[in-house]
């Protein structure tokens, strides 16, 4: 019976366990090298240097994984490595089939790695199937499927009887003994550790005349008697490094000889029983044994296995459960699996350049000096020292800011890591959809916060899938439209002000205005009378359940996803915008904050309260004239800013405050912009600009409309940070919110 699942063996009997995290990180990097290399290899199958690079990475994974007892990984990688070795030696050539097999094996290796990391079950069937595919592709008989045993054993073993024996050892070392850094004395020392040495006789007969002697050559040989309770193997182990090149005779001189036969017989018995064991000591599946003993062929076994039913299927056929119940249970299982996995992988670590840390330590040192100078000054302060005090304060501020920047930079990593998955994705998508697609990546070195990078992977994947499936046309369609046969998807990342822009652009057919409009009308998202502009139509594709794809493909088109993309990006404090030209292509632009923890803010005063407005959203501040103001029924108050009417929000009304001014003409209006929409908010005074650390409202209180978070101000009081989007919503409703 095939058991489907098997937990990886954790046999950590040594001190190396603490390096496991480092191993996973390194193995992840090697896997990326392998995958990237394989994709490139498809384009340049002749590149031997590339194959060497891939081989080295695979080899590294194999060697290191064995050190942690991850035998599943080590064995599988060994098969992969063997095939790679044949390829780089030119004994096999890289065909598309081989490249595909290698890529699938890399995927399998990835999941094995995940399983090892989280301690969850492995997909034994896939592993086994790929293992046999790898072996078959090597053109080797199936008999070698058996798995090598990994030995981590001590060097000395006690003889079965435990009684001491006398051995006569005669040893003629190879002439080059000394040249390989070996010293005959070492061997005697080791032998001495095993027991008692007696009668050490040196044979000098081969020693030439002094003049003809090369001092680096070993001309000597020895005969030694050793009394020990260790067995012959322990003695051979002493000569491990030279045994193949020496003349070595070990004779058991103990009087009763019958026991030595027993000692000899037992290891043979060992090797026989070993054949039916897998590396981790578990018995092999029945099928494997049958194949190895030649009773059935691999094909017959695979066919039989394919017929094997899953437990759900059997229960459905017996009418014990309905297919829906099984599906629900399966879904639950998957959820539990993924929950378990995400839990395990959440404890992330970050690799930091030591130079960054050294600099930080220096800065902290300087900070401590400034602080001690200040406290010294404070203990005997006199008024005439005020300029000194101010100077010290400036220094303190500079150090603090620099430390903040350095600490933030620790969290910054290049976005290239998030882009790395796309070459493979696009390759798979293009084969699946029968399209020719080239992927162009740029700006991989752009740095942003590690958390942001981790969270944008899925939204980006969705956008790329979307471009490949909906955006780009089939090669025939493209040729008909005078476009190059190969479609292009461009991923680009760059800094713009304090934000990161990531664009996903395709040169496909562009969004279809009529289709979106028609769909929106049937879904009641807009009405005919609205006469929506293009800029209002495109964002409709972000509405939940919205898909205009004529047929649902397995790549995308179920109408779930685009809304999730938007939600994900917004939860990171970013925005998504669309630019599309018919027959020319579509560009999605994601704007993301550099970091989630700190923003540049403008402090404003409303009555006696201080509020923070995100600096990025402020366009300008004005003092309006009375005649620029208007009230329109259903739209609330409007203000004419150089010919454009903007909604005006009285923040003191929104947050129910006592403000100094209720007349807009006396107060100050800030013009704020987000997602291309503008709004004017009324405040009493602008206090100044500062960086603030965002504290979540939801975590400490509850969500308040119009407020994005809170922060601690310089004087120790709490200041609220305006949520510009929320303010826009309030303005759109044309009403004040009662708090």
């Amino acid at each position, binding site marked *: 019976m095939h058991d489907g699942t098997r937990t990886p063996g954790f046999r950590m009997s040594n001190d190396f366990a603490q390096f496991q995290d480092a191993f996973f990180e390194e193995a992840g990097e090697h896997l990326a090298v392998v995958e990237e290399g394989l994709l490139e290899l498809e384009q340049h199958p002749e590149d031997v240097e590339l194959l060497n690079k891939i081989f080295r990475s695979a080899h590294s994974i194999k060697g290191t994984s*064995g050190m942690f*007892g991850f035998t599943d990984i080590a064995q599988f990688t060994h098969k992969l490595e063997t095939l790679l070795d044949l390829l780089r030696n030119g004994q096999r050539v890289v065909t598309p089939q081989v490249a595909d097999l290698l890529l699938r094996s890399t995927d399998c290796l990835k999941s094995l790695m995940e399983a090892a990391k989280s301690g969850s079950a492995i997909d034994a069937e896939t592993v086994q199937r790929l293992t046999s595919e790898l072996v078959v592709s090597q053109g080797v008989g199936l008999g070698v499927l058996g798995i090598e045993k990994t030995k981590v*054993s*001590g*060097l000395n073993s006690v003889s079965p009887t435990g009684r001491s024996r006398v051995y006569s050892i005669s040893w003629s070392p190879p002439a080059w003994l000394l040249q390989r*850094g070996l010293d005959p004395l*070492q061997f005697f020392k080791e032998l001495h550790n095993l027991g008692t040495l007696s009668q050490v006789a040196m044979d000098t007969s081969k020693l030439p005349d002094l003049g003809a002697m090369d001092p680096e050559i070993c001309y000597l040989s020895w005969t030694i008697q050793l009394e020990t309770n260790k067995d012959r193997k322990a003695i051979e182990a002493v000569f491990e490094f030279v045994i193949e090149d020496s003349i070595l005779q070990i004779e058991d001189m103990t009087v009763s000889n019958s026991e030595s036969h027993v000692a000899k017989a037992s290891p043979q018995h060992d090797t026989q029983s070993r054949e039916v064991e897998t590396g981790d000591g578990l018995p092999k599946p029945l099928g494997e044994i049958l194949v190895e003993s030649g009773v059935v062929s691999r094909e017959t076994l695979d066919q039989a296995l394919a017929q094997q039913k899953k437990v759900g299927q059997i229960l459905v056929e017996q009418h014990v459960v309905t297919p829906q119940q099984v599906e629900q249970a399966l879904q639950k299982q998957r959820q539990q699996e993924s929950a378990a996995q995400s839990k395990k992988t959440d404890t992330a670590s970050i690799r930091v350049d030591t130079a960054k840390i050294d600099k930080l330590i220096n800065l902290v040192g300087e900070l401590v000096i400034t602080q001690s100078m200040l406290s010294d000054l404070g203990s005997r302060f006199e008024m005439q020292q005020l300029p000194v005090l101010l100077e010290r304060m400036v220094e303190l501020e500079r150090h603090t800011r620099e430390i903040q920047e350095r600490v933030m930079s620790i969290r910054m990593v290049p976005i290239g890591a998030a882009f790395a998955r796309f070459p493979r994705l696009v390759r798979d998508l293009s084969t699946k959809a029968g399209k020719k697609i080239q992927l162009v990546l740029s700006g991989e070195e752009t740095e942003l916060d590690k958390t942001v990078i981790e969270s944008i992977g899925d939204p980006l994947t969705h956008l790329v899938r979307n471009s490949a499936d909906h955006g780009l046309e089939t090669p025939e369609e493209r040729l008909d439209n005078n476009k190059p046969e190969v479609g292009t998807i461009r991923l680009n990342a760059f800094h713009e002000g304090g934000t990161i822009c990531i664009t996903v652009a395709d040169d496909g057919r562009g969004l279809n205005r009529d289709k979106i409009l028609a769909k929106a009308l049937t879904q009641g998202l807009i009405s005919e009378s609205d006469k929506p502009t293009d800029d209002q139509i495109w964002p409709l594709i972000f509405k939940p359940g919205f898909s205009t794809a004529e047929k649902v493909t397995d790549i995308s088109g179920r109408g779930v996803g685009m809304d999730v993309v938007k939600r994900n990006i917004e939860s990171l404090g970013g925005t998504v915008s669309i630019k599309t030209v018919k027959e020319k292509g579509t560009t999605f632009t994601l704007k993301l904050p550099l970091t989630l923890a700190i923003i540049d803010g403008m402090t404003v005063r409303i009555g006696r309260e201080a509020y923070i407005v995100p600096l990025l959203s402020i366009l300008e501040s004005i003092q309006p004239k009375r005649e620029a103001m208007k009230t329109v029924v259903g739209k609330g108050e409007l203000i004419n800013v150089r010919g454009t009417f903007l909604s005006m929000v009285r923040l003191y009304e929104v947050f129910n405050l006592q403000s100094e001014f209720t007349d807009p003409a006396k107060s100050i209006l800030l013009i704020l912009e987000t997602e291309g929409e503008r709004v004017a908010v009324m405040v009493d005074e602008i206090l100044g600009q500062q960086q603030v650390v965002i504290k979540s409202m939801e975590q400490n209180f509850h969500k308040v409309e119009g407020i994005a978070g809170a922060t601690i101000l310089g004087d120790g009081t709490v200041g609220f940070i305006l949520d510009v989007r929320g303010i826009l919503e309030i303005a759109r409703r044309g009403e004040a919110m009662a708090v």
Partner: protein
Amino acid sequence: MSKTALIVDDSPTMRQMVAFTLTNAGFTVFEAEHGKDAVSKVAGGPKMDIVVTDLNMPEMDGIELIKELRKLSAFKFTPILMLTTESALEKKQAGKEAGATGWIMKPFNPDVLLKTIAKVLPA
């Protein structure tokens, strides 16, 4: 004076593990990423009492490194151990011909590592 050891491996994890074991055993440990790195690090540097090297490495592999080291007078008789996997037995032969003193099969545990080193390290 403590013994010096040079560890050559392109895998930082492997280097860390070997270095950890040897440091705990009282060695002063030097690390190199590959053969070239090792050669440049030992040039004019401190004398090594033992070298532990991986075989598969970029730039310069372990076999080449052993050959290069044996050419240097300071390394003529220095014990050099190679880290190798069971499946790479043919490498063992190549390593011996290049002048390797011995080998340690991966996977190994700290105990095996230290015992093997004791085996070849002159007192």
